[in-house]
């Protein structure tokens, strides 16, 4: 077991000296887990996630993770990590694309059971004909599971968000799972400069006895679902219990907001916020958006950029305020359905200002010119 010193989250995140590595997104996952004081990791391979959990297996062999094994499939893995979390340990896993869809039943189950699991999702297409190409459509299916959803722009975000996700998820008043999403291949398989803390440091351990539900309690729901099951009853008492339970889970996500602000600096990041043309994006679309507003500036057009870091909870108040005077809010996305533009339309004061696109999918990259063309169009109007 390597010698590591436990430090406060604040020290690890902001004060500790960092060294710069030139690594892939998958390697950034390994470096985050190395410093995460993770008790257990369970894996099942699926492209583009496979390499990351393979690398977590490598650091298990080095002694940085206490237990690690490969599950039978994604559903089994997500069920197994639920058991581990109910047992009171810090647990990490990752999946992506069809793996996310196969395991879907478990995500609202994690939330309802108040399990602070951290799972990385490396997004890819989920349609037939089978594709392994980059696409963020699986996030649309995750929006109402109740999980906290963070969206990484690059490998640096991925490293930081995974470490911070443990601390956000494990707050007593939050205590629901966090999904850290990154665009498959664009982030996982490309090298980037990532600044990391010393591997001699690690987060404090998880405190299971501060959980809002009893740890490893075989007699009570949510651990023991099928004894004296109020799930099976059809009466008002049962309905009220279920309703209040679900409301409490919604409340838990609301309580995450101050911790996301504290540790991630906000649910969004903004550049040139007073511009009346705004590009709003999450994940790697932020990079193309940033490039597009720089190109626009060279042409004398002022445009701003809103980076969505937290998809759940959604930054509704922040976006309402920022877009109050916007002429156009351009939402570039890596999927065909435009789930982010739908989310934005639901919260802004003037939904007509939301431009649902440009969109690319099927594995295409997004030339910044596509976004620039939209900026030019609204600058002319």
């Amino acid at each position, binding site marked *: 077991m390597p010698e590591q010193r436990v430090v406060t989250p604040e020290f690890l995140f902001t004060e500790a000296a960092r060294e710069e590595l030139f690594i892939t997104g998958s390697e950034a996952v390994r470096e985050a887990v190395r410093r995460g004081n993770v008790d257990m990791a369970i894996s099942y391979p699926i492209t583009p996630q496979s390499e990351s959990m393979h690398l977590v297996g490598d650091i298990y062999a080095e002694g940085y993770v206490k237990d690690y094994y490969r599950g039978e499939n994604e559903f089994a893995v997500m069920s197994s990590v639920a058991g581990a979390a109910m047992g009171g340990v810090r647990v990490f896993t990752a999946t992506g694309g069809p793996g996310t869809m196969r395991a879907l039943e478990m995500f609202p189950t994690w939330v309802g059971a108040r399990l602070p699991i951290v799972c990385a999702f490396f997004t890819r297409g989920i349609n037939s004909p089978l594709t392994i190409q980059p696409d963020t459509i699986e996030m649309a299916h995750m929006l109402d599971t109740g999980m906290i959803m963070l969206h990484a722009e690059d490998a640096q975000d991925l490293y930081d968000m995974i470490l911070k996700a443990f601390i956000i998820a494990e707050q007593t008043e939050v205590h629901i799972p966090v999904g850290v999403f990154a665009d498959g291949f664009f982030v996982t398989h490309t090298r980037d400069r990532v600044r990391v803390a010393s591997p001699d440091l690690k987060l404090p351990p998880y405190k299971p006895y*501060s959980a809002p*539900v009893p740890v490893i309690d075989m007699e009570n729901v949510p651990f*023991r679902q099928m004894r004296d099951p109020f799930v099976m009853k059809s009466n008002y008492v049962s309905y*009220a*219990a279920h309703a*209040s339970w679900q409301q409490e889970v919604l409340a838990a996500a609301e309580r995450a907001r101050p911790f996301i602000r504290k540790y991630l600096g906000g649910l969004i990041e903004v550049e040139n916020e007073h511009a009346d043309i705004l590009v709003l994006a999450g994940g790697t679309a932020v990079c193309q958006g940033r490039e597009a507003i720089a190109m626009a500036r060279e042409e004398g057009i002022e445009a701003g950029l809103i980076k969505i870091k937290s998809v759940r909870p959604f930054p509704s108040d922040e976006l309402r305020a920022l877009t109050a005077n916007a002429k156009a809010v351009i939402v570039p996305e890596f999927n065909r359905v435009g789930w982010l533009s739908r989310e934005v339309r639901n919260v802004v004061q003037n939904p007509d200002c939301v431009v649902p696109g440009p969109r690319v999918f099927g594995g295409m990259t997004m030339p910044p010119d596509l976004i620039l063309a939209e900026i030019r169009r609204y600058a002319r109007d």
Partner: protein
Amino acid sequence: MKNKHKRWTFARKYCMLLKGLQLFYGGMILTKYRVLAGPEGYLPPAAACEGIALPDVGYALIEGREVPEQEALSAIVDKLLSAKRPFFFPGPNVLWEWKAGVAEKAAAVRKLADTAGARVIPMPDYRPKYPMINPAIEINPNHPNLTIWHNKIDVCVFVGVHCHYANMALKIIRGGTDCYTIAICGEAGHEDANITLRDAGIPQLEALTAMVAERRRLS
């Protein structure tokens, strides 16, 4: 008719003023939702989803409003001493001696309840009790109303209940009863209680006991 019109215009302006008070401040809407005793209705919202935030360290909530802890302690004493049938609901965290210090905390809870003249009904676990709970001797977070109604409880104190189950029960109580709820929480507090303390341990329990005793002595 003219006066009526004037009254209506004034009422409309007053409403607009109130709405105006829901100002955007740093991008956030200042909420006016208050966590009052019920019955609030069929399905009351989670207070956290209505913009009520948990108190900062050293603070507490009274009906959703953040106040210094001392002010909340005083309000708890007022409620306990003015109640007709105050009850304490101790949960597993203080009922079972699962770690050092729990027995002392349980004794402090018992002393506070006795000093305040309150009765104690335990919440020993969280299993739904079917076919029927005995509400005279037990409370359960999945159907807390049964115990509140049976015992005609007008003020209750949650202490040592795991946070998820406390919030779950507090919403159901607020929805269906007029019972005033107080949470003495050892963690971050409960927006769904009418009054909540946070990080509360033996010092807060002893302070409450001393305040209750002093108030009784003076009355």
